[in-house]
């Protein structure tokens, strides 16, 4: 009962944070540097909510236009200007090749025109037979299985265990696909038609690059990991959240609607496509979550002390018992698989493994 009550309070609190009402006084205090911790919490929740508050946007615009008339303290901005100059100089040195390039571009444009005309006419004559818009294909990947896929535009990739990918049989101006679960995409480059992966809360937009998306329905985070190039991440309503560069990860927390970008080793997130299970300084929690997905098993960490340990390992085609045995060698951990119970419909429940701290070995680590 007490537990339920606590849960209720926590829920209520997050609810309270999410629906934080806009208050220009609080934002003004925050800006001015004389703000309380309560003000700080409001500002944080207003700025980090996945959908920006309209009043906040308006406030910032107004603030900027007023701000131009306020007197300001002195600050030496010359070093900043110098750094900008240095960067500009740096960028304009290879300028000659730029000019050469633009010459090529002009030449190429002239050559392309007849080609374009030809293409357009084909398009024109074909346009009366419109492709049915509703033709959607779906790839489903069952638990414990990986699938390689090829999309109509030549984009390839892998779909991980227990995931679904939906895509139109014919792509329109935008190449839009919808993902539930985890997938790796190697997107065919096409400047004209951006490739967009829709997940429950995020839209990831790319021109052509390699990246991994994790958005399982039953988990409370969505992750996008970029291997190479650049991807732009938006909320489902089109708020731009940021641009990822190589080896960066954006993690979105569905519960509190917040997100963060961090530097990662992308290889470890992509190795699953080769059947490898790679951990690079990964926390116990993440390891348990990934093992659970990989082997279709529930993993329960019973002792919070275990959260302090992180792991570095690579496994290939190892049974779960072997993986757990090896992990136990690098941390004071013991594991036990629960007897599988069958339900009254004679179905066996999911496997369950319990991890505990091995207190006798704690000092050895």
């Amino acid at each position: 009962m007490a537990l339920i009550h606590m849960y209720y309070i926590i829920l209520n609190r997050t609810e309270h944070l999410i629906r934080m009402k806009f208050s220009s006084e609080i934002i003004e205090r925050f800006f001015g540097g004389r703000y309380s911790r309560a003000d700080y919490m409001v500002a944080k929740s207003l700025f980090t909510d996945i959908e920006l508050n309209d009043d906040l946007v308006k406030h910032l615009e107004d603030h900027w236009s007023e701000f131009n008339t306020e007197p300001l303290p002195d600050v030496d901005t010359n070093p900043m200007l110098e750094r900008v100059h240095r960067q500009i100089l740096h960028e304009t040195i290879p300028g000659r090749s730029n000019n050469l390039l633009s010459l090529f571009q002009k030449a190429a444009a002239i050559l392309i025109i007849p080609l374009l005309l030809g293409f357009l006419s084909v398009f024109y004559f074909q346009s009366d037979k419109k492709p049915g818009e509703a033709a959607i294909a779906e790839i489903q990947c069952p638990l414990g299985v990986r699938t390689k896929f090829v999309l109509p535009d030549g984009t390839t990739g892998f779909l991980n265990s227990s995931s679904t990918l939906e895509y139109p049989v014919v792509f329109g101006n935008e190449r839009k696909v919808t993902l539930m679960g985890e997938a790796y995409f190697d997107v065919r480059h096409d400047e004209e038609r951006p490739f967009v992966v829709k997940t429950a809360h995020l839209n990831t937009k790319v021109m052509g690059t390699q990246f991994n998306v994790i958005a399982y329905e039953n988990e409370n985070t969505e992750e996008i990991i970029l291997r190479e190039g650049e991807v732009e991440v938006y909320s489902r309503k089109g708020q731009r959240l940021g641009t990822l560069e190589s080896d960066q990860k954006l993690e979105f927390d569905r519960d509190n609607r917040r997100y963060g970008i961090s530097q990662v080793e992308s290889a470890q997130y992509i190795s699953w496509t080769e059947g490898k299970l790679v951990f690079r300084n990964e926390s116990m929690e993440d390891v348990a979550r990934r093992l659970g997905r990989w082997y279709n098993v529930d993993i329960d960490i019973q002792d919070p002390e275990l959260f302090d340990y992180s792991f570095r390992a690579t496994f290939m085609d190892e049974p779960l018992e072997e993986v757990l045995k090896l992990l136990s060698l690098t941390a004071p951990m013991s594991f036990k698989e629960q007897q599988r119970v069958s339900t009254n419909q004679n179905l066996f429940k999911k496997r369950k493994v319990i991890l505990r701290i091995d207190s006798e070995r704690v000092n050895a680590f």
Partner: protein
Amino acid sequence: MKKGDSKAFDILFSSYGKRLYYFAYGYLKSTEEAEGLVQEVFLRIWRNRNTLKPALSFRAYLFKIAYHHILVILRQNSFWCSYRHDIVEENIHFTEDMNERLNYQMLLDKVDAIIAQLPPRQKEILIKRKKEGIPVKEIACQLELSPKTVENHLTAALKKVKDGLGEEFVSSMFI
């Protein structure tokens, strides 16, 4: 400036650079971030100088770019979760009254000031542990010290932080 005139660029910078800096600083609360932002915004203006529309007010144009960059920083949860908050949280028990009336910015500044005054080794270890989140064992490897020594430095550093954030100081922080 459209013609690639760098003098015109400097004039724009001198009339808007400072304002942009203070605007950004107010929201980002870090001189480093604010400086980086001013540079980034003006660099972008230089790069896009060929597409500048004379009809559009430069102030509005500048805001558009600046706003976008400030938001990208502010919208990341990591920006708001700096280690200073953790340190404050660990050392001060906030009552409702304190939540409402304590000057939080001064508290954060105080944490910075205390850390700045720590002996170099303690400071280095505290920052590695708290800011960069490196485990004690790894810090020990990096600095070629025993984990025990690292632990001792850390404890001493945290003790100084705790003393610095004592009741007497906190009560002087009420708005």
